[in-house]
């Protein structure tokens, strides 16, 4: 860039450039006048919609289960299904996804089964994470979905690094990382975007701007007009999109993927959406936001919007809807029961995977622990049963209490 000089001490105020919101599908499920739907085949559209519905129903049921005390914790994707699933559908299924925690829709879309969900939620012996993390910390190697980590924003520079490795490997894949507008305040966000721009990395930074970080509204999170303008600071491609509009999200992410993979350039996508539910099962939003606001956003519901579009196109019917809803509810119930009945992970999962091989010192600690548990089996029913399946212990509390 050649330097332009000015001889007036003029300050820019940050309002020079406003970034429009790309949108195709109105709240009524009709295309906006002049808007053109992206190419989306019948099968693909149905896969997307079924995933949205499955996510919605999984969330409803699991929150209810949490309320009944069947599991300790839950987080809903509700209201953000279009953002998450639209983005995922635009990727290659072998692209890496590094998510925050509220993106189970991506897993549903890629084919993570309800059994797999439930095993993690109940931390049983089949949980890939071996019952070590709180509910909703899913991961799947075969589905290229990085295991969730609670510390916020840490996955964002990791996504830059992962995608750098993909670029060197030359396999034509990219990485997409999801994060909230709150997490984007972390230092790791800044590091990730800057490094991606400098090193020309095929990574898509996908911000779910859902208006809140727990109780903190976006206006107390940043003074700017959203997250999108930050791209200027890194000279990065950017688009803002209506996050409740599945077609817009899908198309924007498709294009972003092309920029990433073909030009080796990172892209920032900001999806404007709303966290319709509480932050988590531990939260009650009535202390910090108005019912009215929640209702206004319910009008813009992304699942309903896509459903209407599908109905219009006659790619979907109310009968199918009803049938699918019922079968999904049924499946949730059955898989939940199955998962709940399964025993906890074996005792040695307490000490495995700290290192590739257990260290002598840790083995010593574990041996002492086993001796202790055998002395007091009643106090450690899970450990005791794992050590000796025949032992009878007074209480076994499967799942989390």
């Amino acid at each position, binding site marked *: 860039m050649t330097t332009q000089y000015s001889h007036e001490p003029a300050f820019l105020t940050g309002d020079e450039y406003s970034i429009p919101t790309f949108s195709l599908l109105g709240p009524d499920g009709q295309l906006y006048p002049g808007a053109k739907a992206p190419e989306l085949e019948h099968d693909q559209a149905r896969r997307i919609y079924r995933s949205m519905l499955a996510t919605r129903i999984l969330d409803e049921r699991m929150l209810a289960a949490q309320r009944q005390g069947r599991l300790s914790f839950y987080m809903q994707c509700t209201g953000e299904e279009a953002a998450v699933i639209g983005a995922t559908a635009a990727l290659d299924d072998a692209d890496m996804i590094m998510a925050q925690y509220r993106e189970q829709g991506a897993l549903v879309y890629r084919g993570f089964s309800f059994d797999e969900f439930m095993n993690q939620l109940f931390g049983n012996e089949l949980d890939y994470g071996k019952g070590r993390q*709180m509910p909703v910390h899913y991961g799947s190697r075969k589905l290229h979905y990085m295991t969730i980590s*609670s*510390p916020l924003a840490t996955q964002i520079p990791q996504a830059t690094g992962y995608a750098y490795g993909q670029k060197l490997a030359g396999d034509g894949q990219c990485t997409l990382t999801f994060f909230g507008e709150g997490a984007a305040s972390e230092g790791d966000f800044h590091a990730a975007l800057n490094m991606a721009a400098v090193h020309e990395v095929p990574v898509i930074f996908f911000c779910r701007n859902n208006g809140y970080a727990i109780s903190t509204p976006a206006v107390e999170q940043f003074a700017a007009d959203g997250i999108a303008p930050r791209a200027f600071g890194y000279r990065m491609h950017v688009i803002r999109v209506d996050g409740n509009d599945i077609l817009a999200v899908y198309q924007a992410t498709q294009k972003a993927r092309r920029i990433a993979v073909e030009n080796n350039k990172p892209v920032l996508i900001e999806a404007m959406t709303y966290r319709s539910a509480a932050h988590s099962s531990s939260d009650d939003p009535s202390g910090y936001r108005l019912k009215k606001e929640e209702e206004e956003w319910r009008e813009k519901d992304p699942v309903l919007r896509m459903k209407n579009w599908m109905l219009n196109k006659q790619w979907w019917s109310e009968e199918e809807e009803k049938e699918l809803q019922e079968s999904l509810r049924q499946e949730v119930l059955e898989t939940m029961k199955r998962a709940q009945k399964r025993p906890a992970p074996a005792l040695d999962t307490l000490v495995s995977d700290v290192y590739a091989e257990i260290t002598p010192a840790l083995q010593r600690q574990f041996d002492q622990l086993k001796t202790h548990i055998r002395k007091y089996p009643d106090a450690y029913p899970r450990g005791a049963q794992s050590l000796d399946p025949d032992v009878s212990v007074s209480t076994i509390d499967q799942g989390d209490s």
Partner: protein
Amino acid sequence: MPTMNLLQAINSALDIAMAEDEKVICFGEDVGIFGGVFRATSNLQGKYGKARCFNTPLVEQGIIGFANGLAAQGSVPVAEIQFADYIFPAFDQIVNEAAKFRYRSGDLFNVGGLTIRTPYGGGIHGGLYHSQSPEAYFAHTPGVKIVVPRNPYQAKGLLLAAIRDADPVIFFEPKRLYRASVGEVPEEDYQLPIGEAEVLKEGTDISLVGWGAQMEVIDKAVALAEEAGFSCEVIDLRSISPWDTETVVESVLKTGRLLITHEAPLTGGFAGEIAATIQERCFLYLESPIARVTGLDTPFPLSLEKEYMPDHLKIFEAIRQSVEF
């Protein structure tokens, strides 16, 4: 005297400190109108205004960086880190900045006004990232003080002392006890000393040292031990840094045995420091090896949390082994 739980005691301490000194400023993620995810700062924004009690953006390094600057300016920041597990992005601002501010400037500037409050510890089904006890990381850092209260009464008196202390203090709150621990707490202002341990119970066979939520576990173990005929002396360290070496030395000179317990992993945990110091100071008086009952050298687990925790049975067994050595 009114009855309070630990959260209410903390809230009361903050209220008193803010009412007394308008330089006291409370902030952190969600501490504003919501009063924090545990509600420790409830009503403070309403009472003292948004300028003195507010939400910050979600950035721990920024929260503590901001707090350091504010303290250097002469204000009295009380910054909340939502979970101790999330204090690590602020590690540099604590260890390289807050702890070294006075020293490096020859006391031209200091951040003595700073207090960092943060909930720590396990036993709440929190898994890896809602359970950690990171006190030992900070105990290796000269220049910051570390305080851990065991109950509501202690929490209020120690927090008021921390806020008014001339040095930066990290105040670890045992979140498992936030609502579970209830006790009599004076309405009024009072302080408890930082750097002084408290002997909670005298005994002759073994000294038991702990802090925070682990004191409750020790109590349970002592009940078993006394039943088995072992006389226990119980010490709440209260401050990890500086720690009250003399009180522990004196106790061990009498009992000849020492057990230390914490939730954090064994290796590099603060029990190691205590053991190393006491074996030196009490060498000729020790009748059995100093015992450590701690978390395993693993990240904090979830499904097998019970097995992981240094509970009363593990402590009781270690007491027995020590006395019967």
